């Protein structure tokens, strides 16, 4: 799939070369080069597939940015190497990505060193952008901004919950931070007892022992912090062993694959994200309808945020009067950075009013979702 990204880049390059030969008036500065890092294979490939649809929709709206797309396979080492490549040899003015918190944690310092603005559309583990000022940004709510709203809704829907068990993936960065720090804090501050935190790892296939252990503690509710594959299998095992307690899950499960894999077991699972799938706002509804024409599954958080991140980057590229000359690359990168730092009440096309706070993190209204009849529905 990396070759697909490369071939897009090649086509774009070829078009540029032809237009240059024909003496077309388009100056180089009209098309700033922007790198994109996402998982097109391996861990999280389904998130990446959704982002790809969003990128295609963005590109069809205009060719304001020249995108150089690379597949990180969800691997930290790949993400680091590709970031270096984007900064050093592709000479991009900004990088959109990577998707995972684990990847963001290791690539942000590389971008800071290379003095290139980097903006992840999705990573949600608190503190990652803050540690890499002033070059790192993220167009996603960190999980500490999401989980409060999620737990409030969940407890409102199931008032009997007093004690819970947390099942968490300790190998995935955001699930680990969510399940071991952010969710327990949100639960405890609302008077809920956490009986135990039971861990598993990305890629595990047998969750029977963990679920049996959780069952023996007899909780009122089950909290899951995992990505969609593992989350789906945990939820499935929970129902298989006859536990009927309500389930709430961190934002990692927010992907249509979660429902596909978990099947009926996904019913009633509550989660949270940045994107209101059935937002009646006509512009968003149009975007969702257009998306559904291109994809068998409805858009996910990852797709919506990718689209909006590209939109923000394009706006900044247009506003910052980039020179586009190789000698001015450093200046151009600084201009992009300063523009991103000033994003305030920006009307993002899909996820709505967005502000980047002093930490470089997005601030917007979180949306709580529940699975009903095989679909994510927002709880308003």
């Amino acid at each position, binding site marked *: 799939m990396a070759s697909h990204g490369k071939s897009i880049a090649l086509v774009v390059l070829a078009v540029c070369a032809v237009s240059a030969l024909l003496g077309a008036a388009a100056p180089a500065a009209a098309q700033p080069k922007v790198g994109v890092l996402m998982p097109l*294979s*391996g861990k999280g*490939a*389904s998130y990446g597939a959704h982002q790809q649809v969003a990128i295609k929709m963005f590109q069809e709206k205009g060719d304001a940015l020249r995108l150089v797309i690379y597949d990180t396979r969800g691997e930290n080492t790949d993400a680091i190497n590709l970031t270096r490549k984007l900064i050093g040899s592709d000479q991009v003015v900004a990088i959109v990505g990577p998707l995972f918190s684990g990847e963001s944690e290791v690539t942000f310092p590389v971008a800071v060193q290379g003095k290139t603005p980097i903006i992840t559309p999705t990573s949600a583990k608190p503190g990652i952008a803050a540690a890499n000022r002033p070059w790192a940004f993220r167009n996603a709510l960190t999980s500490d901004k999401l989980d409060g709203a999620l737990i409030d809704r969940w407890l409102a829907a199931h008032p009997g919950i007093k004690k819970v068990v947390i099942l968490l993936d*300790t*190998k995935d960065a955001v699930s680990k931070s969510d399940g071991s720090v952010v969710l327990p804090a949100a639960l405890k501050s609302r008077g809920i007892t956490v009986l135990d935190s*039971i*861990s*598993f*790892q990305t*890629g595990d*296939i*047998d*969750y*029977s*022992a*963990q679920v*049996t*252990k959780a*069952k*023996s503690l007899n909780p009122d509710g089950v909290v899951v912090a995992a990505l969609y*594959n593992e989350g*789906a*299998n945990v939820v*499935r095992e929970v129902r*298989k*062993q*006859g536990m009927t307690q309500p389930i709430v899950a961190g934002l990692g499960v927010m992907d249509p*694959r979660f429902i596909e*894999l978990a*099947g*009926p077991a996904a019913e009633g699972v509550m989660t949270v994200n940045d994107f209101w799938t059935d937002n009646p706002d006509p512009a968003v509804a149009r975007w969702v309808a257009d998306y559904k024409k291109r994809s068998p599954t409805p858009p996910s958080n990852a797709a919506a945020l990718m689209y909006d991140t590209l939109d923000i980057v394009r706006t900044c590229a247009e506003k910052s009067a980039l020179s586009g000359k190789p000698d001015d690359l450093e200046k151009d990168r600084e201009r992009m950075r300063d523009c991103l730092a000033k994003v305030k009440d920006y009307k993002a096309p899909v996820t709505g009013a967005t502000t980047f706070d002093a930490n470089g993190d997005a601030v917007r209204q979180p949306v709580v979702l529940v699975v009903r009849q095989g679909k994510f529905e927002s709880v308003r």
Partner: protein
Amino acid sequence: MLLQQLVNGLMLGSTYALIAIGYALIFGVLGLVHLAHGEVFMMGALIGLQLVLWLHAGPAVALVGALLGTAVLGMIIELTAFRPIRARHGPVFAPMVSTIGVGLILQEVATKVFGGEQVGFPHRLEPVTWRVGPITISSVQLLILGVSVALMVALHLWVTRTRMGMAMRASAESTLTARLLGISTDRVILVTFAVASALAGAAGVLVGLSFNAISPFMGIDMGVKGLAIMLLGGLGNIYGAMVGGLLLGAVEVLSVAYLASSYRDAFVFAVMILILLFRPQGLFGVGHIR
């Protein structure tokens, strides 16, 4: 809870055993480790899944299809990765290296054809669960247990009661002597590969049905564990592989239940190392396909 955990361990362990037996069979006749065995297991799961998706078939068809499909695959591996090197009197361990290559090829082909995403069997095959006293048991778990036991008994009878089984034991004892006595050792080796691979294929379908996590990479961990179990039970000892599989399945599940679950594999391998320290020949001694 302990009872339920032991049931969980038994289920996991019996699939481990099926994989480990395959390693033991091949090691028994060739004295070599087949490092693509985990990938054969993965292909079994994928073949079973495709049959279910295309033919809207049930688990039985998936199981039989996977058994046959991986048996053929196993024979192809023997004919392409082992036999040519043996025929040319290549270095003794060269076939092991060539099976690493076979494993990578199978992984890549599976990724290209079926995609790198984790997939599961359709939900209509969702198991029925029963509650027996304090434990919950599902139809898939009974299927795993039934099929594993049936395959192990069948294997035992085949090895001890048939002429082919006898020929295999003779070849395991000494390939040279067996050949001098008129046994076509090449044919024996081919059949051994077919049987070993079929067992792994069946394990693939069983794991797919019960854990719903089929991907081109599912064979990597399982392959390593199967290998460890073979070592634990005694190199090339099929009964050792059976017992070792159940033992490690139980250790793994109990370590999750009562110790730290992030270290399940560490416990499994620690137990293996401990046992080998005291019994270097493995629990049941080396190479008894007798």
